[in-house]
Structures are given as structure tokens and as C-alpha cells.
């Protein structure tokens, strides 16, 4: 966990905190505090004590044992240590933890360039969908197929550590692979005619002059075995000689189970006629049986025809493109065509050149199917499923570094990192070409690629995923705001969708137009639909021409930046009540990257500590809460920020009066003494100290791009990104480009050399099962 108050202390100028983590302070107060509170268990003289941070006698020792000390800070910060009824005061706790974190932060850039290590990552479901679309032209409904992905570490679904692959997920991949193969390739519909004498029990074929009919006695039955490849509906067509005198029925059975009776009406002219029974048949072999009714019957044939829906031109095009055939063409040499197809498809599917052994592996699947007599298309479909289940397709596995040194990534790995970062999909042809030409370590090529990729409409995937998860606005319309009948006059699913999309378009604009990242705090413009104009109650000030989202200027500055988004404000509210605490915590955590620690145990609930009168306002209740010193340390920071947003109600709409009619009081004062009133002034305060915001944004973008949690060594990289941003006019593209050019993005170091203490601990081997021996 990162500095909670350090940053804010600098930002807001709180006097209680040290300006710098000096050596003298360590000796005079930090070490004594830790010795008094920790030494009983973490005795440095005890050889069996492995948590021996108290062995650090000098302040410099903290820097050299970074992992251990970061852990100490985290434990202190979270109040997980010292345990139970330890007597450490809140002041001492904060004093110590702030010093340690400040020391770690300021000394972070002294070592060598840090690359870090990224474990293999499963494609998350967005990436899976996009990759399948770009590889095979098949668009899937992923929400139906896969459960939502976990987001861990730094809060994104790109985080490899939390992209689990439990057996249930693998089953879904098997299912998806089958669906994709069925959608990508069109197998000719099964159409099999079984003549009367071919039915079991078989009889010799009739002579040339004889009628091809077979006489059936009442109750007599004939059957045939068929193999069905695709799960589908089939028409079972039974052809008999028309009854001249008495109508009759024929029963149809599948696998011994009667599924219907076909009735044949009388026709004095006789002649062949057919009736159809539809049946759903699973992949596999089936026995179809025809059972004669109560009359003598002349039976001609049984036809089994797959009822395939008409195939669209698009699907046909995909089919032939994938097979590498002209429309209507069939392969002359199927085996050679199959091998050629795999050789072409595999490098793109695995996003890496493949050895011939890899092609052999897939070809073996094809052969398995082809040798038992499946059709060419069926055999290719089968092999395709193997490709889609391969770890090389499902995972992004980077070429292992063989040395213990930090190594540059392969050009193909860089191509994938770029495309999944900015497009959430596989590399396109151009990226593959540059990878092949080994140009993707060239900074100028990379910079040019970043620009090209951001200009592409595909970069919307990045905007949506990044901003929705960072701000949390993707929750809007789901859990975050309940759909209640009493809200429906202004809040509908369409409004929710617009509220969710508003930050996405805004963010996309920041990089397509290369705006300043500070626009996130104070942009005077936004994107609205007519519905949102109404929602924000701006009909008299903004009129849109035409449907859809349009870029508009806010009529005044009260809503500038993300703090004006109704989505953000609604998300940080309780039901029917805006919450200054949640909003304050949101600003600290999301915009400033300073997680708020959990409340200490045994905190009296808000209402109990404020139970002085029944009409207490939120402001009064919070003030009473802060009288408790344990609460005050954090609430002194959270509450004023949140109170500055009191003009926004629980749905994020503007209000001048409270529910009880009294005017809204949106004034706040920070511990440093800085006063403000309302969102405009609050924003100015935040903007005046933008470094923490820049650091947070850089941390988040880097974390999203890398797909891992923040590690200790990243602090230096982040500092570098912030410096570049400051030098370059805060342009959004500068940030994205510099992330791509950063050491962690282009290099990898072996996992063993990475400090094991990260903001998210590394995955350990499963413990032995409880209850087992």
C-alpha cells in the first residue's frame, strides 16, 4: 500500500508530518517507537526471528532492505501490526509509517533501472473477444460465455495475478472454441439418403426392373446408423408408397426413443410420398428407426437432412478466407492445404513465429479427424479448437529470459504488449511486420506506432477499459445506482448507459486530441447526449443538434473535470444521501493514490457518536466523529474534501439547498488551514498541488499497461514519467508514449530477482488442504 498521508501531507501541507525522512529522525524517534512496540516479538537478538527489521540500526539500512521495510509500513498502515491490544498511539503509528514510506520513496531511484517481472497472463474476456474477432472474424457475446474477470493489484482486469483459470473457465473455453469453429467455418449440411434395401437388416439391392420399395409388415421396423458432426436440427424424411385404401402411420425413433408418428393419407393414385419428422441430434452416432404401423407398407427411403439456416455472404467470405480458398473451391490436396492453413494461422494465433513442431502438433489433430473419415471442414474445425485452447493462444507468455540479468523483450512480445495495452487485442499486420523486421525496440518506431494506434478507432477499447475501471464508473447502471421506480422520471437504463459512456468519450478525447492530462481535473468541456443535458438540468443552457454524444462546454466551471461527472458523484453516495466520507476517500484514493486505511477497531458508528439530536446534519455528525482522535487522523483529510462536493446530490445533480430546505454548506478547511468553499475552489486546491495526481495517473496507466501490481522499484519509473509530463506540457500522448518507452514496458527481469514484496503479494504455492494429511 502506498503512502496514505505522506503525499497528502505534502499536497495539503499538514504540519504534523515530517518534511523529509531524515537520518536524525530515525535515531531520535522512529527506532525508539518501533523498539518500544515491536521488539517483544521481533527481537533482533533472537536468531529465530526472521522479521528482523529492528536489526536496521541506521536509517540507510531501511533503503537496503526495502522489501522488509515496505512490509513493515504496510502492516503499520493497515493496523495489522502490532496486534491486538498493543498500546501504540495513533500519532506514533502515523509518525513511524510516514517516515518509512517517505524514506522508501525518496530513495527509490538510487539503484539500477528497474524492469520488474510480469507473469504469463490469460487473455481477459474483453481481450479474448477482440482477439477472436481479429483472428477469425467471429464476434462473440462474451458476457454470455465467460464470468467477469477479477481485477487485482492496481485495479484492472489486465492484471495477470488475478486472471485465474479454474477448471470451470477451461470448460468455457472448450465450449467457446467449439462455437467459434462452428461460426468461422461452414460445414456442408448433412444430407444422406438411405435406400430401402440399405436399411438394417439389409437386403440385396433390387434388380433393375424391380421397384426400389421394400414391403413392410405391420409392426416391422428398419433402422440405420448415422454419424452427426454438428449439434443441429435434422429433418428425418420417410418416403413410402401412398396408401390407396387405408391411411396409416409410421413411427420414427431415434436411439430407441419414439419421437413422432408420421401420418400418410389415402390417395387412390398411389405413388411415392414423404413426411418429415424434425429431430435435434447431438454430435455422435445415432440410430434412426422406422417402425411400420398397422398396415402393410411399401417403404422407399429415409433421408436425413440437416436444417441449416441460410449462410450469409459475410460468413461465406470468412470461411473461404480462412481456408485460403476461392469461393466454391475445394482443396485438391486436403492435407497440404491444412498444413498451409496452420502455418499461416498459427503465428498470428500465438502472436509469435512458430516452429514446425508446433504446426505438427495441430496437424496431428487434423489428421486424427481426417483419418476417421470426417470431412475436410470438420477436420479443420477440430484442429482450430486445439489452437483456441492452446496455452499459447489463451495466455500471453513472454519469451523467458535465460540469464539472471534484465533483458529486453522480444520484438513480438513488444508488439503484443503494445496492442493489448492500446487496443485490447492482438497485434495487427503492421505491428507484426515491424516485429519481424526487429524494429520494435527503436524508440522512434515505437513513438510512431503509439501515435498510429491512438489514432485508430480501436483505441476506444483502451479508453473504455482504463477509465471505467480507474474511476469505477463502469459500475454505473449495475450495482452502483439502483433502478427504482421512483427514479424513473429522470433515471433510466439509457441514462445510466450515457453516464457510463461520458467519461470514456472524455478520456478518448484527451488522447486523440492530445490534451493536457490536467483536463481530468479541470476541463471546461465534456461530452453529452440530449438525455444527459436533461439529467444535468441544463436544457436552458445547452442545446444539442442531433442525436448521440457531442462535445460541449460546461456553462460554468462548477462541473469541470471528472469531479463534475454525475457518475463519479453518484457512485460515491449512499442511497438517497451524498456521502462526504466516500467522496473524500474517493478523491484521496482514486485521484491522489493515497489509500485510506481501514477504520480502527471499535469505532463508534457515525450516528452513535453524534446522537445529540435527531436533526443532526451529515456535517454535524462528521464533526462529532472527528472529536475522536482515532477517527480524526483520517477524517480530517477525507471529510473536508467530501464536504466541498456537498452541492452535488446523491445522483450527482446540482443542489443549492439541503433536503430540509436549508442552504448547502460546501465549505471546508484542510488541516493545513487552507480554506475553500464549493467544488470550484476545491478543484483549485487540488490543482495547485498536482504532483500527487500526476503520480497516481502515471501509476495507473503503467499498471494497466504492464498487467501487474505496482512493485517497489516502479516508484522510480513513475517519478520519471511525472518529470517527463511536467517538462512536456502535460500532454496525454506524452504519458502514453513514455509508458511504452519505459524500462518495465520493454524489458523483463527474472522473477527471482524481483523483490517479493509488492503492493500485491506474489502468488504462493497452494497450501496443503485443510483436513487432509
Amino acid at each position: 500500500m502506498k503512502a496514505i498521508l505522506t503525499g497528502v501531507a505534502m499536497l495539503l501541507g499538514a504540519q504534523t508530518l515530517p518534511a523529509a525522512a531524515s537520518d536524525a529522525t530515525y535515531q531520535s524517534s522512529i527506532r525508539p517507537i518501533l523498539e518500544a512496540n515491536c521488539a517483544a516479538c521481533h527481537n533482533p537478538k533472537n536468531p529465530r526471528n526472521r522479521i528482523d527489521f529492528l536489526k536496521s540500526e541506521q536509517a540507510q539500512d531501511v533503503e537496503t532492505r526495502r522489501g522488509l521495510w515496505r512490509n513493515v509500513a504496510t502492516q503499520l498502515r493497515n493496523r495489522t501490526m502490532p496486534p491486538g491490544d498493543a498500546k501504540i498511539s495513533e500519532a506514533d503509528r502515523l509518525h513511524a509509517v510516514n517516515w518509512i514510506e517517505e524514506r522508501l520513496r525518496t530513495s527509490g531511484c538510487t539503484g539500477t533501472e528497474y524492469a520488474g517481472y510480469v507473469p504469463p497472463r490469460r487473455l481477459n474476456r474483453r481481450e479474448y473477444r477482440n482477439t477472436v474477432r481479429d483472428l477469425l472474424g467471429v464476434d462473440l457475446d462474451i458476457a454470455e460465455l465467460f464470468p467477469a474477470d477479477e481485477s487485482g493489484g492496481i485495479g484492472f482486469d489486465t492484471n495477470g495475478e488475478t486472471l485465474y483459470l479454474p477448471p470451470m473457465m477451461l470448460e468455457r473455453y472448450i465450449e467457446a472454441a467449439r462455437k467459434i469453429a462452428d461460426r468461422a467455418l461452414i460445414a456442408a449440411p448433412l444430407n444422406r439418403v438411405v435406400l430401402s434395401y440399405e436399411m438394417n437388416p439389409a437386403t440385396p439391392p433390387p434388380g433393375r426392373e424391380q421397384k426400389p420399395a421394400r414391403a413392410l409388415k405391420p409392426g416391422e421396423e428398419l433402422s440405420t446408423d448415422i454419424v452427426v458432426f454438428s449439434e443441429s436440427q435434422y429433418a428425418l424424411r420417410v418416403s413410402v408408397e401412398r396408401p390407396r385404401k387405408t391411411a396409416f402411420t409410421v413411427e420414427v425413433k431415434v436411439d430407441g426413443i419414439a419421437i413422432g408418428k408420421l401420418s400418410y393419407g389415402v390417395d387412390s393414385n398411389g405413388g411415392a410420398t414423404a413426411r418429415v419428422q424434425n429431430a435435434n441430434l447431438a454430435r455422435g452416432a445415432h440410430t434412426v428407426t422406422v417402425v411400420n404401423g398397422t398396415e402393410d407398407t411399401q417403404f422407399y427411403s429415409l433421408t436425413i437432412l440437416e436444417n441449416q439456416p441460410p449462410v450469409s455472404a459475410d460468413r461465406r467470405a470468412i470461411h473461404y478466407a480462412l481456408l485460403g480458398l476461392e469461393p466454391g473451391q475445394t482443396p485438391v490436396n486436403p492435407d497440404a492445404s491444412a498444413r498451409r492453413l496452420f502455418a499461416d494461422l498459427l503465428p498470428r494465433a500465438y502472436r509469435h513465429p512458430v516452429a514446425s513442431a508446433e504446426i505438427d502438433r495441430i496437424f496431428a489433430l487434423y489428421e486424427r479427424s481426417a483419418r476417421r473419415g470426417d470431412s475436410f471442414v470438420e477436420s479443420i474445425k477440430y484442429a482450430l479448437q486445439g489452437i483456441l485452447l492452446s496455452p499459447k493462444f489463451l495466455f500471453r507468455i513472454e519469451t523467458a529470459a535465460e540469464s539472471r540479468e534484465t533483458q529486453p523483450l522480444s520484438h513480438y512480445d513488444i508488439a503484443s504488449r503494445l496492442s493489448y495495452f492500446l487496443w485490447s487485442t492482438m497485434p495487427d499486420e503492421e505491428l507484426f511486420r515491424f516485429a519481424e523486421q526487429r524494429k520494435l525496440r527503436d524508440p522512434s518506431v515505437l513513438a510512431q506506432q503509439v501515435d498510429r494506434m491512438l489514432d485508430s478507432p480501436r483505441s476506444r477499447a483502451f479508453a473504455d477499459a482504463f477509465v471505467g475501471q480507474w474511476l469505477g464508473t463502469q459500475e454505473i447502471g449495475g450495482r452502483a445506482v439502483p433502478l427504482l421506480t421512483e427514479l424513473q422520471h429522470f433515471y433510466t437504463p439509457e441514462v445510466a448507459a450515457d453516464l457510463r459512456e461520458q467519461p470514456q468519450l472524455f478520456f478518448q478525447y484527451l488522447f486523440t486530441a492530445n490534451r493536457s492530462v490536467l483536463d481530468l481535473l479541470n476541463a471546461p468541456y465534456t461530452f453529452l447526449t440530449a438525455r444527459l443535458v436533461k439529467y444535468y438540468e441544463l436544457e436552458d443552457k445547452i442545446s444539442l443538434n442531433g442525436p448521440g454524444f457531442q462535445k460541449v462546454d460546461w456553462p460554468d466551471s462548477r462541473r469541470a473535470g471528472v469531479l463534475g461527472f454525475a457518475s463519479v458523484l453518484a457512485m460515491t453516495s449512499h442511497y438517497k444521501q451524498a456521502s462526504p466520507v466516500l467522496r473524500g476517500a474517493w478523491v484521496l484514493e482514486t485521484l491522489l493514490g493515497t489509500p485510506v486505511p481501514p477504520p480502527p477497531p471499535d469505532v463508534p458508528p457515525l450516528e452513535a457518536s453524534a446522537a445529540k439530536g435527531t436533526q443532526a446534519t451529515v456535517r454535524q455528525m462528521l464533526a462529532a466523529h472527528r472529536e475522536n482522535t482515532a477517527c480524526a487522523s483520517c477524517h480530517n483529510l477525507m471529510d473536508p474534501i467530501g464536504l466541498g462536493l456537498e452541492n452535488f446530490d446523491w445522483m450527482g445533480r446540482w443542489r443549492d439547498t439541503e433536503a430540509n430546505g436549508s442552504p448547502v454548506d460546501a465549505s471546508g478547511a484542510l488541516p493545513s488551514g487552507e480554506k475553500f468553499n464549493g467544488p470550484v475552489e476545491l478543484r483549485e486546491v487540488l490543482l495547485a498541488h498536482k504532483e500527487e495526481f500526476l503520480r497516481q495517473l502515471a501509476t495507473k496507466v503503467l499498471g494497466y499497461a504492464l498487467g501487474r501490481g505496482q512493485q517497489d522499484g516502479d516508484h522510480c519509473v513513475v517519478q520519471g514519467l511525472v518529470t517527463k509530463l511536467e517538462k512536456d506540457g502535460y500532454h496525454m500522448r506524452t504519458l502514453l508514449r513514455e509508458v511504452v518507452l519505459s524500462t518495465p514496458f520493454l524489458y523483463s527481469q527474472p522473477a527471482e530477482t524481483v523483490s517479493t514484496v509488492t503492493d500485491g503479494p506474489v502468488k504462493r504455492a497452494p497450501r496443503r488442504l485443510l483436513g487432509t494429511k
Partner: protein
Amino acid sequence: MTNRISRRNVLKGAGAALSIPWLESAASAAATGADRLSAPPLRMACMFMPNGVRPDHWTPAGDGESYDITPHLKPLEGLKSEFLLIENLWNKSTVGRNGHWPKVPAWLSGGFVDRTTGGDLDSGGTTMDQLLAQRIGGATPLPSFELGIDSPRTGVDTAGGGFPRALGSFLSWADPHTPVPKEIVPQLAFDRLFRNNRAPVVSTNPQSQAVVAALQRDETSLLDMVREQAASLRSKSSKGDQARLDEYFESVRSVERRLEASLRPQKRWINEGKLPLERPSPGVPATHIDHVRLMLDILLLAFWTDSTRVATFMFGDAQSAQDYSFLPGVKGAFHSLSHHRDIPETRAQYEKIVTWHTEQLAWFLDKMHSLKEGDGTLLDHSMILFGGSIKDGNRHIEENLPLLLAGRGNGTLRPGRRLRAAPKTPYCNLHLALINRMGVDEKSFGDSTAALDGLV
């Protein structure tokens, strides 16, 4: 193995329902003595309700075996002879810290849930349902079946103790680091029951039998291939990479084992007759109650068809924010109403929501009770554990968890009374008792001190 009627309906394939799941047909033909259990097996389901209860509306007064039904239990009055009210159990490892998130994984494991930032979930233990799945799951097509309503939550609840919210979404854990996702989409859950039942061998033609045998192994052959590929990748990769590949490898093995098991004749219980349940349409039902009941119906079908014997169901995830305004007199979401601050009007709404849950349970148990199998009912051959991880939703009280155990457990339970254990008895004692009843011989589980006494 399922009943003929639905098999027939499936084959007839009404209208556009093209991809109806494929029920086994071999059932009728091949299910002779060797593949058939002669008596119904024991099934177990654990059903979780979030956000606690109102204690005095749950626990009856007095301390005898007999008791007067309380308001929360009122919907179950007609089934009073079919369940045990179990009192005074708790999960000591969950005391304090956060009121919701860590208490969910611990509910069936008794483990101490670590506070992490999400990169490394640690539930502190394997849950008892998953232990059973690993030990006896091979006997049925699905080793276990996890169902629920809410999609998993993400992020870390920094304001609430620094726990990943995901902890509150997973009741079942295959090991301390591996949550087992639950099915929340009815159609997917339904299809899962029938996914393995492919390619019936009915034909007597030897040639097509060979084709069928080959087709049946299509999936396992695919998995063989990717497993080899993973193994060769693993041998070339760094230590760090290996951990992730191992997870993949293990999942492949697990699915393969299941497919293999489904090809072997499994000795299963076959119910003749009808259990009408159409394949659900895609997506999630529009109303909460329809969603809950459909999932419960699917669970019922899973037990009835002996597709699994171990299941979990989450009526809601921890801190469920499900909006219950559909209940008369209720305006708002479950979790926020659970913190009613003893304000009578708010508390009354909360009580209605809790009692709604026991209504759904009663609906489910009634159905189980009405299904005859063997010498009794499906409920007689089951153990349905229902309850939550906190006693009092308003205060997150961990003692004396609200729990009830329905069914007769194949004669190993004596329902129709209350069982008052000594105060602060480990909840894991009950788990151990259930594990043993399911035929797994363990001497301890979690923080158990002994198998819970007095169930029979």
C-alpha cells in the same frame, strides 16, 4: 442419467430451439444393474444468505428441543419436522476485522482470510464442499456445482478494512488461493448439467461404435495436445512463469479427469419420471425472484438427475446491494437496510428481506420434499445447510450464527427440533459432521474440535 420424457422432448426439438442440451439416451438402454445405484445417494447443498438476520426474529426463546416458530422462520413452519435449527456455532477466525468480505470464504472453510490487495487472494482454507468434490466428486458427471446470483465484485475495499471485495463473491475455494466461480446465468448452469452427456452409444454397428468412441474422445484428445504443449512450455520457462502454467495444467488435468470419468460407467441413481424444466432462455431473468427460483430449480434438477451430489448456492454476495423494492413496504437495497440502526421503520424493511429468503428456501425444500425417490423423498436423501456468516446484520455479530440444516441425510439426521450446542462451538464441527456423512473419513476440518454431536 435422466428421464425419458425430457429426452424425448429434446429429440423432438420444438421450433427453433436448436441447441437444446443433449440428455443421455444410454440411460434407458444401458442403465442396468451394474451402472445403477440400488438406493438413492446422499446429496449436500450449502446455501448462503448475506447480511445477517434480526437475532430475536431468528432464534426462538427457551432452550428445549422443541420451540415456537419465530418470525424469520415462519415461512418454514409447514416444514418444521424436516429441519434442524442449529444454534451457538461460530467461526472464530472471522471475528472482528471486516463485517462481510472475509467471512464468506471462511463460511465453509473456517480459515483465517488474509488481507491482501487482490493479487494474492488467500482464503485460509479449502472449503468443505470442494474437499468433498475432490474426494467423491468423481462419482458424478459434475464433482460439484456452484450457483449464485451476483456477478463477482472487484477492487479492494480500502475503507472497509483493506480486503478484496472478491472474497465476498466466492463461497467455494478449491484451495486457499483458488476461488471457484459460481454460475449466475441460468442457461449456462443448465447446460453444464448436460455438457458431458454426449455421443450416446446405442448403435450395434461395430463401425459406428468405433466412430463414436473416437468422437467421444475428441475433447480429451484436444486436452492431451494442449497439456503436452503446456508441459513443453513449462520446461522452458522461468520459475515465475511456471506457477501460472501450473494452474492451467491443473485445470486441464481436472477437466480431463472429469471427461474420462464420464466415459466410464458411473454408478448413479436413476429417477424415473418427469421433472419438467425447460432449458432457460439466455441472459438473466428480469426479476430477482425469477432468477433465484430458476437457479434453485436447476439445482434441484442437478440433484434429481444425480448429476452432482455437492452444491453451493449464494442468494447474494457479501454486502449484497440487491434492491428489494419489489417487496411491499420495502424501499432500498439489502445491505444498506441491514444497517437499520434499530430504527423501527428501517428494521421492519430489513426483516421482510430476510424472511423473503426463508420463503424461497421453503419453496425449494417443499419441492424437494414432494419429489419421491427410492423409499422416501429427495429431501430425505439430502442435507441442505442454510444460513449466513453473521448473526446480526446491523452489528456484524459473529457469535451464534443463523443456521439450519434441512433433510434427513439418509437417516443420519433427526430433524424437527433445535440443536443447541455449547456457546462458541466451532462451526467447523458441523462441517466435519457433514463431511463424514458424505462418506469422507476425516478426523478434523478447519478449527474443528470434534464432529458436531446431537445431529441424529
